[in-house]
């Protein structure tokens, strides 16, 4: 029990901040993000013995969290689409009064989920395009295209640079 507990605590300490942030950008709701992370770690505790290598922990937890999110979505799907959820934080203003931070968050919140999620996985969780492709069950080419388009849309919304490259992906 002690070793299991210790291993779990190490895992939680290392992964909870990133998971919470990823969950937040998945659902854009602080309370739901917290619930998702809590449920994810609870499930992780129960099957911690199946995790062979610590290096695989991040990806394992992301997969659990995504499944939890999908489960939550399916519960609500009968009544409302995810981007119409009232709990969605359209202000994208969680923490900090920095204008640039708020501008970027607003722009990020405007991306459609198909563009926002791979970008969040890459920027917050440090996932490679290969990892993202496997987790989202997409081809690596599709992930590259989505990441490219996501950044192009952000550049446009934030008024950064020229528009070169919008048509290439």
């Amino acid at each position, binding site marked *: 029990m002690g070793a299991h507990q210790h291993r779990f605590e190490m895992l939680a300490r290392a992964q909870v901040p990133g998971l919470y942030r990823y969950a937040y*950008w998945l659902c854009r709701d602080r*309370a739901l993000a917290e619930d998702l992370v809590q449920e994810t*770690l609870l499930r992780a505790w129960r099957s911690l013995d199946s995790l062979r290598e610590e290096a695989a922990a991040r990806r394992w937890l992301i997969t659990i969290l995504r499944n939890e999110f999908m489960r939550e979505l399916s519960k609500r799907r009968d009544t409302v689409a995810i981007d119409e959820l009232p709990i969605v934080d359209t202000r994208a*203003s969680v923490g900090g009064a920095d204008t*640039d931070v708020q501008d970027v968050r607003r722009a990020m919140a405007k991306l459609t989920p198909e563009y926002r999620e791979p970008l969040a996985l*890459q*920027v917050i969780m440090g996932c490679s395009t290969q990892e993202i492709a496997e987790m989202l069950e997409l081809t690596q080419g599709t992930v590259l295209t989505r990441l490219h388009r996501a950044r192009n849309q952000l*550049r446009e919304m934030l008024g950064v640079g020229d528009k*070169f490259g919008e048509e290439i992906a």
Partner: protein
Amino acid sequence: MSKVVTCLDVRRQAGAEPRRLEPGVVEHCKSCASCAAFVRELVALDARLERALAVPVPEGLEARIVLDATLKNAPRAWRPWLAAAASALMAIGLATTAWRHQHPVGEDLASAVVAHIANPEEAEALAPDRALIHDASYIEQVMGHAGVHMQGAMEDVTYAHVCLFRGQRVVHLVVHGDHGPVTILLLPRIHVDQDTPVDEGGFHGVIVPEGRGSIAIVTNNATPVEPMERELTSSGRFTL
């Protein structure tokens, strides 16, 4: 022979992974000022992104998760120990209750309400140029998510959101008042025994008991809160 990297290749690769550039892309940028500038711009954008996406993690979340998982998955043999721990917590709870009789909880709550409203992350809720929310079903769904039921409709609402407040999901509303925005917090399961005035940090108003919870009506302008208090607490409008 290695593939010739074109400007198009650079834009495509840098747009997808600006921090993991292939050697060919790096080489190309050494002789192409335009692509080099493009890559620099994307790296700068990613730095902004990284900062912006790092939303604050709720305080104590890791500890709560570890405790929750430990308790929920504890083996049978641990249960007597957990029962003892629960008894200790109960004793602490009783002591806290006694302390709170001497130090009215309402004052703490008033400070917490003001702290929540004045928090920079909530500042946008009070922006004077916020448009009215005309979709009544949106407001109902916000309330539903916090377990709040309302009879009738609310008018002049410019902001409706579920917030975590003292570990509870609460409804954070802002309505147009006579002299500016007025914040209404519907606080299920957070009870006050009597009307509790709020007067600090430039905010004034009242927290009133409502069912098993309470309602805070607070503003930082000259709008009188009493008429709103009467309207909100009339005939069991809210189930908290």
